[in-house]
Structure formats: C-alpha cells, structure tokens
C-alpha cells in the first residue's frame, strides 16, 4: 500500500515513516510543506495520504486545504489528517462530501502503533477514523438537554455508538468491549431504531450515517 506522508517536524515525520514501513506500507513520498504535498498527491496517486493540518509555508491549515483540494479532484481519495488539536469544524469539512475514506486523529494517537496503523488501513479501504475526542464533543452537544434520542440509549449502546462513530467495525467493537459480535450487532440495530436511522449492511455507510446524525443541527 503506497502512502504519501506530510509532516513538517522532522522527528515525527521520520518516526511515522519508520512506523509505517515496519507495518509493510510503502512510503511513496514523505514531504514537509504544502506545495510539495500538493504535487505529491497529484503525481504519485497514493492509496492513502497521511497529512498534518498545519504545514509550511503559511503554518495555517495548509495540509487540510491540500487534502480537501485533492479530494475534490479525486473524490474518495483516502486521507488521514493528523493534528495537535481536533475541531468538529474540520471534521465536518472532511466529511462534507459524504464519500468516506476520511480520517481525523490527534497526533497523540500515534503512540498506540497498532491502533494507528489500523486507522490508516481503515481509511485506505474507504472507511472512517474519527478521533474519540471529536465523537465525545459531538455526543456532548447531542445530549445537552437530557431528553434527545441519544439520552435514551443504554450506557452499553452509547459505548457502541461511540466506537461505531469512530469508524470501527463490529468485529473491532466486539473485541474492544469483550462481547460477541452478535451482541454488538444487536446493539447497533437498537441504536439505529432509537435514533430513527435507516439500517445499512455497509459498514462505511453506517458510520457516515451516524456521524451525519450526530453533527446535524438541532
């Protein structure tokens, strides 16, 4: 799997290259600025891009803008965005085209190599990887008034919803919560009924539906 990596801090870039290579990824390019990233995304046609939000020369949201532009040119181009902070605003922009293949994680998540690599693979396969903090922000907003549909979920269902919204598959959720996959499937079915969403067998579409629901304005 070919990866384009954009990160301006040398230590982190170097560490990511080594990490991804250790897990069998091929690094097509590891760049450190916005213009280089733009060129690499246009010319190298990677399977997935791992991009820092803030890049030179402007040190603003250059990386995010490059990623969004590249996805407009090539819809569904898998992009995993890393940042020192997560904002629902940015998550919304990444998810706006509804085509999946999007990840948005705190840089801290790199500490857990297994999970990070899993997220990269998921995004490359057209799935989603949203940072737990984003999901918590979404849920906190959803459950402010104490009577919305999210409030009617059982604690277990809420846990499942959180993991599902992060983009994890039923298998992964079952592993994480130490329950059977069938139990998870039952919880998901309940969640979809309680939130009034249409059930879909497609994992990716399911995640996008949940995220769209959580992000909807009340």
């Amino acid at each position, binding site marked *: 799997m070919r990866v384009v990596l954009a990160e301006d801090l040398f230590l982190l870039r170097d560490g990511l290259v080594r990490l991804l290579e250790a897990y069998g990824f091929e690094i097509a390019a590891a760049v450190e600025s916005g213009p280089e990233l733009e060129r690499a995304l246009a010319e190298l046609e990677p399977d997935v891009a791992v991009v820092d*939000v*803030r890049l030179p020369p402007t*040190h*603003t*949201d250059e990386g995010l803008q490059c990623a969004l532009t590249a996805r407009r040119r090539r819809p569904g181009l898998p992009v995993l965005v890393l*940042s*020192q*902070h997560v*904002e*629902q*605003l940015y998550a*919304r922009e990444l998810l706006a085209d509804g085509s999946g293949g999007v990840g948005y994680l705190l840089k*801290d998540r790199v*500490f857990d190599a297994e999970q990070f690599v899993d997220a990269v693979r998921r995004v490359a396969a057209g799935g989603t990887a949203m940072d737990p903090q984003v999901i918590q*922000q979404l849920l*906190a*907003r959803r459950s*402010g*008034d104490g009577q919305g549909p999210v409030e009617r979920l059982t604690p277990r269902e809420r846990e499942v919803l959180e993991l599902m919204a992060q983009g994890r598959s039923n298998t992964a959720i079952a592993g994480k919560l130490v329950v059977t996959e069938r139990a998870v499937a039952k919880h998901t079915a309940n969640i979809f009924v309680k939130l009034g969403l249409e059930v879909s067998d497609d994992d990716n579409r399911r995640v996008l539906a949940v995220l769209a629901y959580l992000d909807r*304005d*009340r």
Partner: protein
Amino acid sequence: MVLAAVRGLVLALAVWPWTVVVYCLALVSLTLIPLGVGLVTTPWVVRAARALADNRRDLARRWCGMHIPSAYRPLPRTANPARRTYALLQDPATWRDLRWLMADTVAGLVTALLPVVLVCYPLEGFALAAGLWRVVTDGSGGPYWYAFVPVGDRTTALAAGALAVLLLVVADRYAVNALGVHFRLTRGLLTPGRAELAERVKVLTDTRRDAVDTSAAELRRIERDLHDGAQARLVAMGMDLGTIELLLDKDPEKARQLLAQARQSSAEALAELRDLVRGIHPPVLAERGLGDAVRALALRLPVPTEVAVELPGRAGAPVESAAYFAVSEVLTNAVKHSGADRIWADLHHAEGHLRISVTDNGRGGAAIGAGSGLAGVERRLGTFDGVLAVSSPAGGPTMVTMEIPCALS
C-alpha cells in the same frame, strides 16, 4: 503636478459632496432634537461626520504625508438614544467636526480646486495661442481676457500662450503645495486641543495599565498551569523511566506496568498542554482566523448557536485574539447564566470597525459590573479602543455588542 490636480478634482467631485450632505443632515438633525426625532438621528449623523473626518485624515496621510491627530471619546455604550446623543454632544470633538464640515463646504472646495485651476488655466492659454483665440473673439467686439492679457489677435494670443508657459512653470512648482493648503486647512480645523489630548492620554494610560496587569496575570496563570501540570507530569515520567531502567532485568513485569504508566503520563501531559495552548491562543484562530475560530467555539457549546460571519479579511493578530476571547467570555456567560436555549453570534466589519453581537433568548438581567466577566471583557477591549454595550432587560433577550476599531487585511 498632474497628480495633485487629479487629487484635487477627486476631492472636489467625489469627497466634497458628502461634506455638504452630512453638514446639512447634521444641521437638520440638531434642530430636530427638541422634537425628539433628532435624538435618534444625531448619533448616526455624528458618526457619519467622524467617518468623513477620518477619511480626510486618511487622504491627508496618503497624499501629503500629513498626520492629523484625532481624539474622539469612545462611542457611548448606552442604548438610550437621549443619553447617547447627550454624550456625543458633550464630546468637543463632535463640535470640532461640525466646525470643520462648515468650513469644508466653502473653503474646502476652493482649496481643493486650487491645484486643478493651477493646472488647467495654462492649458487654456495654450489653446488660445493655438487658435482658440479666433473662436472666442469672433462676433463680440471686445477682447477676451486671459488673466491680464486682452486677447484680440494672433500677437496677443501668443502673449497669452507665453503667459501660460509662465503659469505652467508656477503650477509645476506649486500645485502640490496648493493641495497641501487644503489639508493644512483641514488639519488646522480637525486637530484636537490640548485638553482633549490630555484626556486621551489619560485614557491611554488607564488602558495600558489594564493591559499590562491583564497580561501579567495571564503569564502567572500560565506559569502555574505549566508548573503544576505538564512539568510535574514530565518529572513523574522521567522518574518512571529511571525505575524502568533499573527493573528491566530484575522484574520485567513490573517494568512493563511502569511503561504503561509513563505512557499514560505523557498522554495526560499532552492533553494539559493542549488545553493550555487553547487558553493562550486557540490553534483554530491561528489557522483560520476569527470567523472560523468562533464557529469552532460555537460547535463546542452545549447550547445551539448560530454564527454569522462577514469578514472580507483578517484583523491584526492582537485584535483577533482580544475579540476571540471577548466573544468566548460572552458566550460562556450566556450558556452559564442566561438559561437560553438559542444563541446568535454575528461578526462583521463596517466603517473601520469590527462589530460583534451576541444575542440569546434567555432571561436577561446581565450587567457590566464588578465581578462579572463582562467587566473583564470591557477592559480587554479597552486596550484596542474597543467598546462593549449590554442590553439585557429582565426577562430577556440579552444582546451584547462589541466594537473594535481596526482595519482588515
């Protein structure tokens, strides 16, 4: 020379009519004060006059490199039109603006046209010499006067031409200065007196002290947060790592436990640093500017908040930061105390001011006073000559408006 003439023409044709309009409106508005109507209109007219004066100050700076100081008191923050008008009429700067408007309607126009005339009059002389003299002397008996030259035939026309050359030389030397006459006149009328400058100095001294105090308190807070938070965690992590080194051979199981703990500490230290950074200068503000930073902030609030932004550019970083924290404080207040279930924030830039309003449909009763967060917001904005106004009748709704004079880039 030509540039000076063009600028004079612009002044006379594009700027001067506004003087007349605003001056007339001001007179009408002032006479209508006894009828009550003037109370509502006067603040608007006074502000228009200020904008016009500021525009002329700007032109003076750009065209003649002339600095015309201004010393307006901050706009009164009461919503009551009578008190607003009264406060504005108390400001000597208001009356000075009116005096200037009056002078500008006549003297301003004349001085603006001076360079135009200086440049155009020689042209007429050339035209006469080139043959126009035939046309202008046709039919009528008497000579056509060009300055003091009676133009009647070819010779006198040539004399007029010669005079025109002379005048052109004069114009070349003095046209720029002639435009300067206009701005010197403006400066003479608009420059504040000593008492006003003293008042302005007092305001600046106060706001500077506030700014210094606030930033010192901020630094103390940051120091404490770092000291008790991230720094302490890094110490713990270092100790854990040292112990791990010792245990690696003797007790690998225990070492593994400590490793997990160290990782946990590093994650917590990062989280604390992140919060601290958000409190110093939110990353979205640096990355996207004020509009998106407020949008991102709104998305974190438990109360549904609509944000409307109309900012064609970005304000300077200090202004952005002050405005952001002001909005943040006001929004937090609304969420905590108003009991509102909806909030609206509106940010736009008009007439050289960044204008922000935050409205909620809560129970009202908010006031600027000791101990309320709004007093802090007022101090913060004061550093930038910004003002804060609160309208919050019991029963709501509450509307907080903020204005900071600034330019966008």
